[in-house]
């Protein structure tokens, strides 16, 4: 039980730039440590997006609930959000003692975030390239273009593609 909470404490401490940076890490850790199959992961990822709230927090709640019930849901969520709380507390204590160049730090964190999000993309998407799944690649590409070019809420794409998949897959 402690293991899964520690995993989410770790995930919470590296999630710079928001939840998408760690979705790939959640997938790899959960599947490699045999907590779930790829299909269960897809279920959790979809539910986390179709409910209000931040993606990583929702996934933590769902995974905690799935394995250890209500207490698991509360504790898992708590461990995920603990790192920023600790950092804010530490910052308040150390504020006058340390001197950090803020712009450089934020730029550097953005670089780190870019690496993490690329890895999320790789972790989620590389299977479609490796299997040369043309239909999936086309859908991914079209979704991406429409998301860049229009202001349609991503949730409509998620639901729409879900129904499309029932028809064509």
């Amino acid at each position, binding site marked *: 039980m402690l293991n899964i909470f520690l995993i989410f404490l770790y995930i*919470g401490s*590296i*999630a710079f730039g*928001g*939840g998408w940076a760690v979705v790939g890490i959640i997938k*790899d850790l959960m599947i490699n440590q045999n907590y779930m199959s790829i299909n269960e992961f*897809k279920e959790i990822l*979809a*539910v986390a997006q179709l*409910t*209000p*709230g*931040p*993606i*990583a927090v*929702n996934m933590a709640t769902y995974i905690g609930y799935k394995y250890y019930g*209500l207490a698991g*849901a509360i504790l898992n969520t708590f461990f*995920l*959000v603990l*790192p*920023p*709380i600790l*950092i*804010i507390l530490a910052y308040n204590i150390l504020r006058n003692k340390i*001197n950090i*160049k803020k*712009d*450089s*730090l*934020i*730029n550097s*964190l*953005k*670089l*780190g975030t*870019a*690496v993490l*999000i*690329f*890895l999320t993309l*790789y972790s*989620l*998407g590389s299977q*479609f390239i490796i299997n040369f799944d043309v239909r999936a690649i086309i*859908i*991914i590409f*079209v*979704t*991406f273009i429409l*998301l860049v070019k229009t202001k349609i*809420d*991503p*949730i409509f794409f*998620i639901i729409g593609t*879900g*129904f499309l*998949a*029932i028809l064509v*897959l």
Partner: protein
Amino acid sequence: MRNLSLRNKELMAIFFLFFKISVLTIGGGYAMVPSVERALLKKDLIEEEEFYDVLAITQSLPGSVIFNLSLLIGKKLKGFWGAMFASLGVMIPPFFAIIIIASLIQSYSDSIYIQKFLEGCYIATVGLTSLVFYKVIKNLNVNKINIFLFLLGVIILVFNRNLTFFIFVFLVVLNYLYEGGRIKC
């Protein structure tokens, strides 16, 4: 005594402000930021400039943008308890939504239609992740060192994900030092 009840009222107001936004915004963190801004400005709780200062701080914290924003704004408005009430307001709606859906879906998840639906959602998610990646890259100040560190990190981590935390810290520190950042104590 009267002061205490006034304080409680203010805390509840902060709680419900974030609760309402959290219920009404599906689609996660970034979709909520404009809603929070509008609600706070409308009630004159914070100046626009202050809001953007706080938003900038969330960029240097790990975790959900909206959760960190609620913590910092709650703290700014009403100290420790403000932070607690604001963040609980953000967290409670998705928490119960997840619990309800998680207990419902388990009885249907063997259905072939649900399986296909989830596969479709997953494919769209890859498209959405591409968008997130595109936006992050667009906001990066690109230079030679940046590109080199990015490629270095990606290549190492594609082969060995266990090093994620170590490589992340390594890249951030190197880039920070390169940009002339110092750590003075």
